[in-house]
């Protein structure tokens, strides 16, 4: 554990990835591609320790995610415990196999909000992308969520295969009574990076989709809030990843690894600390991993002398590693990066309309990728 120069701002967001298990097989899943190699899940008491210590440090927004968090039998117990600690509790779920009884139990436990995801606005495409027949059931679940008085976010991950359905997706959100819609353009890490040639949309597709989203943003004002998450490959300024490394977000993976961002475990030799060995306070304030990209001492050019360095913090370090081989390089999305051409090459490559089939996120594919 390295020392840090000054006390960092406290964590405000805790993402509790309860499990990597999931009945869906989405080819853009943000879980690690080698998830089948990852060790034992934390037990209930270990999660409670994480929740208590993080809350004491200042975390107040809490996301229960995965994989599919509904798979955990102790979900209600963890929700209740978190509610008592004063968290705002969010459940981030596919909604698949979510019974009405469970929706009621979670409400009684104090769950504040449910985010449900759909893959597309048509049954055929949704079920193809999920790798599981889920469309009708998910829609039924969404209606039950609203019936029981939860605020609901409908999340749809956008990419080349579904972005033409933008209008249908937004009409579906209205039909289901969503309070918020998150239109999240795919970010290319993990499984999505494996499938980038088949998922990356064209500039024209994005412009059309964004125009439709804007129209609905206006017409739905006051009823349904629509968030459009920009696709960074088509930008020339990088995103301010995680609002700055180790400033706001704390992710705990199913095996207890503490991550400054949920993709960080793919950085090589990064040695993320584990909650089985360290307290959250030690991890947040003192660990090498959480201090690694704090401040700007780590920066190389062009970041070091860039006027925007306090605005975008050099962009996404995981993306820099994945595309340039060095996490300390500027995010190649940045127009000033000497590696920026790699982004254009990726876009050109995807525009060739690959015949390669999508690689679905499942144990068989994970095992074969882990060997590579």
């Amino acid at each position, binding site marked *: 554990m390295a020392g840090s120069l000054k006390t960092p701002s406290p964590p405000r967001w805790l993402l509790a990835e309860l499990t990597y298990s999931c009945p869906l097989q989405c080819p853009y899943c943000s879980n690690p591609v080698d998830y089948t190699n990852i060790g034992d899940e934390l037990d209930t008491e270990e999660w409670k320790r994480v929740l208590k210590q993080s809350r004491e440090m*200042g975390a*107040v*927004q809490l996301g229960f995610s995965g994989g599919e968090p509904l798979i955990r039998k102790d979900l209600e117990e963890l929700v209740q415990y978190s509610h008592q600690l004063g968290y705002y509790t969010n459940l981030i779920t596919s909604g698949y196999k979510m019974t009405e009884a469970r929706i009621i139990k979670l409400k009684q436990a104090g769950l*504040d909000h449910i985010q449900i995801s759909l893959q597309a606005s048509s049954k055929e495409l949704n079920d193809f992308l999920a790798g599981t027949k889920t469309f009708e059931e998910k829609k039924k679940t969404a209606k039950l969520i609203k019936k029981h008085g939860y605020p609901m976010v409908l999340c749809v991950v956008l990419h080349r295969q579904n972005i033409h359905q933008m209008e249908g997706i937004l009409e579906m959100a209205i039909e289901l009574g969503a*309070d918020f819609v998150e239109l999240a353009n795919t970010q290319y890490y993990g499984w999505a990076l494996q499938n980038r040639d088949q998922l990356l949309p064209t500039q024209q597709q994005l412009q059309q989709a964004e125009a439709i989203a804007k129209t609905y943003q206006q017409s739905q004002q006051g009823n349904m809030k629509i968030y459009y998450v920009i696709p960074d490959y088509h930008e020339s300024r990088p995103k301010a990843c995680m609002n700055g490394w180790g400033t706001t977000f704390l992710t705990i993976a199913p095996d207890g690894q503490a991550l400054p961002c949920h993709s960080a475990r793919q950085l090589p030799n990064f040695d993320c600390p584990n909650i089985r060995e360290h307290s959250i306070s030690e991890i947040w304030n003192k660990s090498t991993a959480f201090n690694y990209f704090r401040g700007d001492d780590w920066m190389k050019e062009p970041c070091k002398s860039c006027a925007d360095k306090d605005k975008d913090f050099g962009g996404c370090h995981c993306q820099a590693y994945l595309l340039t081989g060095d996490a300390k390089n500027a995010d190649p999305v940045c127009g000033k990066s000497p590696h920026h051409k790699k982004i254009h090459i990726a876009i050109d490559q995807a525009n060739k309309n690959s015949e390669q089939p999508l690689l679905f996120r499942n144990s068989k594919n994970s095992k074969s990728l882990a060997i590579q």
Partner: protein
Amino acid sequence: MNLDTNKPFQLSTTYRLQWEEAQDKFVLLYPEGLVELNQSSAEILQLCNNTNHLADITVLLEKKFETSGLEDDICNFLNIALDNGWITQNA
């Protein structure tokens, strides 16, 4: 959106106002979102209780802080809060 001086304000049902000891400030919590509030914003939102109108909020805060001429600032903030959906005047 322009506020209605004849209607009371209330916090929207999807939003929760909460004091955070670790940060020494009020925060507004909603699905997957968090707004850290400065003192004046928090003072105003605490008075959005389904009873107070603009005039009531102004009187209460001017009295509390022993000052006058707050109405414009309060009005500006309430309009922002309405636009963001943090509060409503539907009742």
